[in-house]
C-alpha cells in the first residue's frame, strides 16, 4: 500500500498541483473576504469586531488539525519505518506554525475591543501559546539535527508530548473559568452560531485549508528535490 506513497510517484502529481491550488485559493479567498468583510451581519453585542472571528477561528482550527496530523504521521513513520511520513509531516509544520501565530495575534487584536486587554494568561490563550512553542521546537529540531534517525526520534518525541496539549486547548474553556468564550460550533449538538455567520466562516476555513495545502505541496516538492540533489552528489 505504501508503494503509492513513494516520492517518485507523488512528485508527478505534486509538481503540477500548486498552480491549480493557488488559483482555487485566490477564488475561494476572494469570496470569503467579500462575505466576511461586507455581506455578513454585525453581532448584536460585539458589533463589527466579530468579523475578526473569520480569520481567528479558521487559523486556530487549522493549526490544531496540522499538529494532530504531524503527530499521527510521525508515529506512523516510526511504526511502519517509512521515511516519507516524516517528510510529509515536516512539509506541513511551517504552515501550522504560521496559522498558530495568526490565531494568537488576531486573538490579541480581538481581545482589546471585547475584553479591554490584548493578552490574558487564561487557559485557552496560554495553551495555544504552548502549542506555538511545540511547533517552534519541532521546526528547530529539523534544523539542528542532521542524522535522519536522530531527527525522526526527536521530532516524534516532541509531537507525542505536544499532542497532550491539543485536548487541553479544546476543553480548556469548559474545564476552567476563562475569558475566552466556549465553542459556538459543535459537530454533535446544535451550533449556537447563525447560518449568516457560519457560511462565511466555513468559506474562510476552506480558503485557509487550501493555502495550507499549497504551502505543503511547495515544501514537499522542495524536500524531494533536496533528496535528489544529494543523490546527484553520490553519482
Amino acid at each position, binding site marked *: 500500500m505504501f508503494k503509492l506513497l513513494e516520492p517518485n510517484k507523488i512528485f508527478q502529481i505534486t*509538481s503540477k498541483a500548486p498552480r491549480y491550488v493557488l488559483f482555487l485559493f485566490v477564488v475561494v479567498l476572494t469570496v470569503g473576504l467579500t462575505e466576511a468583510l461586507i455581506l455578513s451581519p454585525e453581532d448584536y453585542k460585539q458589533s463589527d469586531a466579530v468579523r475578526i472571528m473569520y480569520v481567528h477561528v479558521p487559523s486556530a482550527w487549522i493549526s490544531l488539525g496540522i499538529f494532530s496530523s504531524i503527530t499521527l504521521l510521525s508515529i506512523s513513520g516510526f511504526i511502519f519505518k517509512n521515511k516519507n511520513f516524516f517528510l510529509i509531516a515536516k512539509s506541513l509544520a511551517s504552515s501550522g506554525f*504560521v496559522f498558530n501565530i495568526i490565531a494568537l495575534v488576531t486573538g490579541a*487584536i480581538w481581545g482589546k475591543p471585547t475584553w479591554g486587554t490584548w493578552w490574558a494568561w487564561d487557559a485557552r490563550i496560554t495553551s495555544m501559546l504552548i502549542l506555538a512553542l511545540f511547533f517552534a521546537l519541532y521546526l528547530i529540531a529539523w534544523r539542528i539535527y542532521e542524522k535522519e534517525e536522530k531527527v525522526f526520534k526527536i521530532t516524534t518525541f516532541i509531537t507525542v508530548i505536544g499532542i497532550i496539549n491539543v485536548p487541553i486547548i479544546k476543553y480548556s474553556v469548559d474545564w476552567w473559568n476563562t475569558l475566552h468564550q466556549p465553542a459556538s460550533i459543535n459537530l454533535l449538538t446544535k451550533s449556537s452560531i447563525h447560518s449568516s455567520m457560519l457560511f462565511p466562516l466555513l468559506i474562510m476555513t476552506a480558503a485557509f485549508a487550501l493555502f495550507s495545502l499549497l504551502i505543503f505541496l511547495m515544501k514537499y516538492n522542495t524536500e524531494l528535490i533536496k533528496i535528489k540533489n544529494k543523490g546527484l552528489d553520490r553519482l
Partner: protein
Amino acid sequence: MINELLFMNGYGTYVLSAFGFTLLSFSSLYFITKLQFAKEQNKFVAKFGSLDSEKANSAKSQRINKEILADATNN
C-alpha cells in the same frame, strides 16, 4: 459607503489590522517557500549540468529527475 465600510462602527482599525496581519503572513510564507523551492531547483539544474554524459544518462533514467528538469524549464 466606503467610509462606513472602513470605519466598521469604530472597530475598523482592529478588524482591518487582523485581516492585514493574516494576509501579510500568508504572502510572506508563500514567497519564502517559493524562494526556497527555486533555490533547490536551481541547485539541481546546476549539478545536473556539471555531470558527464554517462552520469547524466544514468540520472536521467530516473523519472523524477526528468520531471524536475522539465518543471525547471517550464518556470
